[in-house]
C-alpha cells in the first residue's frame, strides 16, 4: 500500500486545502478511494491526490525565518508615532 495526500478545492476563489490522507494499492485506486473517503458529499469540485513520497518536506533551515518580527508589517509602530506626534504624521 502507498500513502496519498488528498486536497480539495471548492468552487470560486477558495484555494486547495488538505482534506486528509489515505492508503491505496496504486494511483488509480487512490483516486477512487479519495472520492469516496473525502469527496462523497460534494466537499470539493476539484481534487488533487498526491503520492506522499512526492511531497518535499521542509526542515528547520527552511523554516528559520520565524524570529524576523520586522516581517510582520502590522503597522503598529507607525500608528503609535502618529498618535504621539499628530503634526509630524500629517
Amino acid at each position: 500500500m502507498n500513502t496519498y495526500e488528498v486536497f480539495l478545492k471548492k468552487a470560486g476563489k477558495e484555494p486547495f486545502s488538505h482534506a486528509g490522507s489515505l492508503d491505496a494499492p496504486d494511483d488509480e485506486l487512490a483516486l477512487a478511494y479519495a472520492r469516496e473517503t473525502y469527496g462523497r458529499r460534494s466537499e470539493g469540485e476539484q481534487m488533487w491526490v498526491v503520492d506522499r513520497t512526492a511531497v518535499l518536506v521542509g526542515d528547520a533551515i527552511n523554516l528559520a525565518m520565524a524570529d524576523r518580527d520586522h516581517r510582520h508589517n502590522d503597522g503598529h509602530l507607525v500608528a503609535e508615532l502618529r498618535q504621539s506626534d499628530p503634526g509630524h504624521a500629517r
Partner: protein
Amino acid sequence: MSPDETAKELVLAFADDELCVGQNHSWWIAVGPFLEEDLAFSSIAQDELGHARALYSLVSNDVDRVAYGRPHSEYRSAHLAELLCHDWTMALARHVLHDLAEEIRWTALLNSSWPELKAVATRALAEEQFHIHHGVSLARRLLSSPDGYTRLAPVLSELAPLGREYFAGSDVGLVASGVLNASLADQERTWMERVEEVFDEFELSIDWGASRPSQGRAGVRSEDFLALHDEMVAVLRIDPLATW
C-alpha cells in the same frame, strides 16, 4: 402481456437485482478488507439501493411494500444478485460482473421512450462509471499478483455464467416501442464481450454455458434469498411502522 406490462416486469426485475446487490454489499460495512475499501464499497451499496428505489417508484406508489412486502415468488431477481458473498473474493467478483452488466442495461435505457425511466437511467449511468472504475481497477490489480490471481480468477470464471440471467425475461415489443434501445439478447452479447475484454490479458477460462439461466426471473428463489430477505425486513418485522 401488453408492452406496458412487459416494460413494468423489466423494471421490476432490474429493481430486484439492485435491491439484492445493494443489500448484499451492505454486509461488508465495517468489515471490509481495509478502511478505504470499506467506505467505497459501502457507498456503492447505497448507490445500488438508490437505483432500486428509483426503479420501484416507477412501478409503484408504495416503494417499501413492493421492495420488502411481496411473497418470495413475486421477486424477479437474478440468482447472481441474491448470492450471499461473505467471502471478499466472491463479493468483488460479483460487484464487477454486476456493474459491467448494469452499465449495459442502463445504456439500453438511455434513450428510452419512457421518459421517467430514461431520467433514472441517465442519473444511474453517471454513478456506474465510478462503480466500474473501482471494481475493475481493484480486480485487475489483484489478478496481477500470483496470490490474487489464484484466488480471484476461478471465482470470476465460476460466477460469470450466472450473470447471463441479468438479461433473462421478456423484451417482446420493447425495442419496437422504444422502451429499450437494445434487445436483451444484444445486451447479453455486449456484456459477455465486455467481460472478456476487461479481463483479456488475464486469460480467464469462462464457460458461458449453452443456455441463459432464468429461474430467478421466473420466480424461483435461490437458497441464499431467504437469509438475505430476512435481513432486509428485520427492522420492519420489529416495527411495521418504522420510518427513516
